[in-house]
């Protein structure tokens, strides 16, 4: 690091020598009180500063959105029957969906309880993936993450990494989910069709359907298991996508189970279970009852696009020189 460019080595403002003492410095307190005062003030000041320092704890509020903390103590009306439609945002703040280090319920953090049940083939695939986040991260110049180049993140990565608002639309034959990131959408068919029987060569068993092909967004069918619980099954995935931002892989045998539970008028809980017998010895839960809050029908979902030319400029100006 060059010196002499106006660089100071401390990130936080100091009280300059000779400056006015901070508030509270002139309190007349005895030695015992002072003993208590110091840690109390320290905690108070750290708490005040913490939104600056500990950004993860700051409520990530999208303009116009509402969160559970806006309604302390307010009880919601009962859930409507067989209805998950609406614009939804994470009830506890938009940061809930970022999942930088991998699927929220199973982050890649090296903890034994978050070790995924890989098959040998699955572990090999995981080792081959080079994420820029999580326990096995590499510098960006060495990554083989398909997303920075704007390859499709696909499903379920769309909900396991950088997840934001969702708008759910129900029709007589479909549940359609619109996702903020890259303005993607999925159709979950509710017309009674069956999932492709061969997930490795997937196609709808319906006359006039497109020929068999694996898809980044898979094939999805859904059903109401009771008046407040909608379950979708998906398969037929293109195995080039990753499950999450930590490089968790999936094979072409991936089967994803999504459970939506309408808890009350304001809340929807989503659970995502990964079932991939080629890569994992047993199903595992990637999102566990993550709560969403219903938003105003006039809330506009922000635009967020992966733009190859912007990515190229970012790599040229930052990522590549940073990794040298």
């Amino acid at each position: 690091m060059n010196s002499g460019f106006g660089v100071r080595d401390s990130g936080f403002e100091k009280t300059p020598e000779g400056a006015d003492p901070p508030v509270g410095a002139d309190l007349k307190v005895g030695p015992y009180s002072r003993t208590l005062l110091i840690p109390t003030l320290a905690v108070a000041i750290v708490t005040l500063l913490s939104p600056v320092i500990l950004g993860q704890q700051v409520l990530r509020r999208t303009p116009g959105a509402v969160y559970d903390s806006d309604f302390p103590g307010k009880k919601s009306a009962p859930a409507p029957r067989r209805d998950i439609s609406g614009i939804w945002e994470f009830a506890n703040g938009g940061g809930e969906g970022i999942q930088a280090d991998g699927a929220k319920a199973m982050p890649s953090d090296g903890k034994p309880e978050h070790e995924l049940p890989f098959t040998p083939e699955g572990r090999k695939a995981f080792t081959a993936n080079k994420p820029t986040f999580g326990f096995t991260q590499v510098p960006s110049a060495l990554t083989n993450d398909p997303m920075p180049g704007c390859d499709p993140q696909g499903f379920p990565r769309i909900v396991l990494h950088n997840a934001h608002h969702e708008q759910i639309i129900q029709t007589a034959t479909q549940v359609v989910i619109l996702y903020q990131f890259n303005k993607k959408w999925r159709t979950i068919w509710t017309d009674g069709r069956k999932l492709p029987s061969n997930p490795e060569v997937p196609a709808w068993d319906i006359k006039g359907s497109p020929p068999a092909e694996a898809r980044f967004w898979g094939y999805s069918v859904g059903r109401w298991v009771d008046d407040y619980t909608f379950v979708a099954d998906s398969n037929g995935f293109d195995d080039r996508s990753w499950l999450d931002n930590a490089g968790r892989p999936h094979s072409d045998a991936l089967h994803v189970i999504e459970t939506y539970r309408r808890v009350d008028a304001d809340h929807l809980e989503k659970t995502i279970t990964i079932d991939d017998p080629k890569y994992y010895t047993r199903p595992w839960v990637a999102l566990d009852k993550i709560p969403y809050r219903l938003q105003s029908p006039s809330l506009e979902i922000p635009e967020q696009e992966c733009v190859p030319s912007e990515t190229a400029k970012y790599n040229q100006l930052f990522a590549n020189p940073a990794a040298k």
Partner: protein
Amino acid sequence: MRRMLVAVASGIALLSGPLAAHHATAVFDLGKRLTLTGTVTEWFWANPHCLLRFDVKSDSGETTHWVAETQAPPNMTPFGWSKQSFGVGDQVTVILEPVKNGQPLGRILQVKLPDGKTLVAGAPAIPAGGAQQ
């Protein structure tokens, strides 16, 4: 009072260290902080990360071209950032976490604007690479 400041500083160090490290990224000199005052040359409001480019002049008149990143626009707007946050020529004071290799690059923690207002970069969960955040 000096002891209290030490206590506060220790508290910050203790609390911020492990949490910042939770989002460890390979290229950054984690925990290091630099405060730089300079002149904005470009505000690139873009995915996967916004970039603030600014020139910092040394006492001897030498100029260093800094590039500092934030997260992607939708993750900055909740904290008051926008495409209009900076104009070319703005004098800003940037607190950032620099990269390890000594290049004039870093990720922004906060920026003091010409009008005295401060923009805070929200979650410091900024990835090392092109991963969209």
